[in-house]
């Protein structure tokens, strides 16, 4: 089965983000992911408002991280949200963004171990597991249990990009959120996820594998490319050399973009983004072009496609365009 999700960054007023999520639910999207960054509006406040105005769509953080939020608090948040949106809550968790963590003096140490233990603790909390937890990084005592019952299971999706985190997602995740947009990168990621699942003795088909893409759709390609340019500038600037080299993007060029962004030379940074970079790090174009690209991504083995920021030149119009002209090519409308 093919599922479709949408990501929102809660930079906008609560009612605007909620308006768009209702729109997405009306159009047949399956999931809503709200990013968790300390410098935007709080993810769980945003999600609980959204939960109040939606009925069917699944919703959750996409993604939170265990460096800034202790896993017992993440467990408490998603469990509480589940009372408002019973059976609809999903939880995306990853190692987070190194640059953002450094802004608040937090070092990203042992990301694999940290994410693994965090997932274990969240699951234990949700089922009110008795006994203490003795991880290498996190510990909880036998008394650290919820005083309330959680009626539903909450699927945990692991946000991943590198080979080891992708394998971890395959080994322990209910789902995986692949942070990539290019079919080659996603195909490689799916291979790692399956490898991780098989090593852990799991059937890879149990895992909902989502491509969590930078996305933009508009009536024509030119209009779709414009809003994605700044997003791609940041992706290029933050990509490791091996990813850049694999896509024939010169490391020096990426470094220049990084330096221009750091110095707030937006015109130069965004001006250096070319079509090849956009095609590598985003899914964008007219509805027909997007349909073709998404179809190719499903052929890599993903089961879920998430349209991430910026969505398009006009969010409302782009959600409509996607819902009315792209989605029906893959699934029946509600």
């Amino acid at each position, binding site marked *: 089965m093919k599922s479709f999700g949408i990501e929102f960054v809660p930079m*906008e*007023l*609560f*009612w*605007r983000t*909620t*308006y768009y999520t*209702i*729109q997405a639910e*009306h159009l047949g999207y399956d999931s809503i992911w709200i990013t968790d960054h300390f410098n935007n509006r709080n993810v769980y406040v945003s999600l609980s408002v959204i939960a109040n*105005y*939606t*009925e069917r769509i699944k919703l959750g953080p996409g993604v939170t991280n265990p460096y800034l939020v202790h896993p017992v608090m993440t467990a408490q948040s998603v469990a509480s949200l589940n009372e408002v949106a019973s059976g609809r809550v999903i939880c995306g968790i990853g190692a987070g963004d190194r640059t953002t963590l450094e802004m608040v003096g937090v070092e990203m140490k042992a990301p694999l171990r940290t994410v693994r233990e965090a997932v274990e603790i969240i699951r234990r909390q949700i089922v009110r597991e008795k006994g203490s937890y003795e991880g290498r990084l996190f510990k909880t005592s036998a008394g650290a249990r919820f005083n309330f019952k959680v009626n539903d299971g909450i699927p945990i999706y692991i946000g991943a990009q590198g080979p080891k985190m992708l394998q971890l997602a395959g080994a322990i995740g209910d789902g995986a959120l692949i942070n990539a947009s290019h079919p080659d990168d996603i195909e490689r990621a799916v291979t790692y996820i399956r490898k991780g699942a098989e090593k852990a003795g799991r059937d890879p088909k149990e895992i909902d594998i989502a491509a969590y893409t930078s996305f933009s759709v508009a009536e024509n390609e030119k209009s779709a490319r414009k809003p994605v340019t700044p997003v791609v500038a940041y992706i290029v600037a933050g990509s490791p050399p091996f990813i850049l080299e694999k896509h024939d993007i010169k490391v020096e060029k990426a470094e220049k973009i990084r330096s221009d962004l750091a110095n707030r030379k937006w015109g130069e940074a965004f001006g250096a983004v070319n079509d090849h970079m956009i095609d590598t790090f985003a899914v964008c174009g007219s509805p027909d072009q997007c349909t073709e690209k998404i179809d190719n991504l499903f052929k890599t083995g993903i089961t879920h496609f998430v349209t991430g920021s910026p969505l398009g030149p006009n*969010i*409302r119009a782009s959600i409509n365009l996607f819902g009315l002209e792209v989605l029906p090519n893959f699934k029946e409308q509600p």
Partner: protein
Amino acid sequence: MEYRELVKTIPRTMREVLSNKLMDVLLEAKAGDAVPSSVAKTLLYYWQRDQLASEAGLTALLRAVVEADPVRSAAVIGDFGLEEIKLAISLKEE
């Protein structure tokens, strides 16, 4: 300004298109934070039920959009030939 009374004067055939245009104005308004949260929540209530073009939905939408961008709201309403409402918005602005 009695928004509900003003909305009653809008021909039913016009309400769907008008609510769409006003929603665009509202979503693009720079002063979106001027919309009281109670009005925003009423608006979401009707939007969830796909009733923004109903009398109650349009009333909430008009209240919100006039707070967020009275100039553009008046212009859109003027384009629909709804002079009485346009005048009421202009008077509120003054």
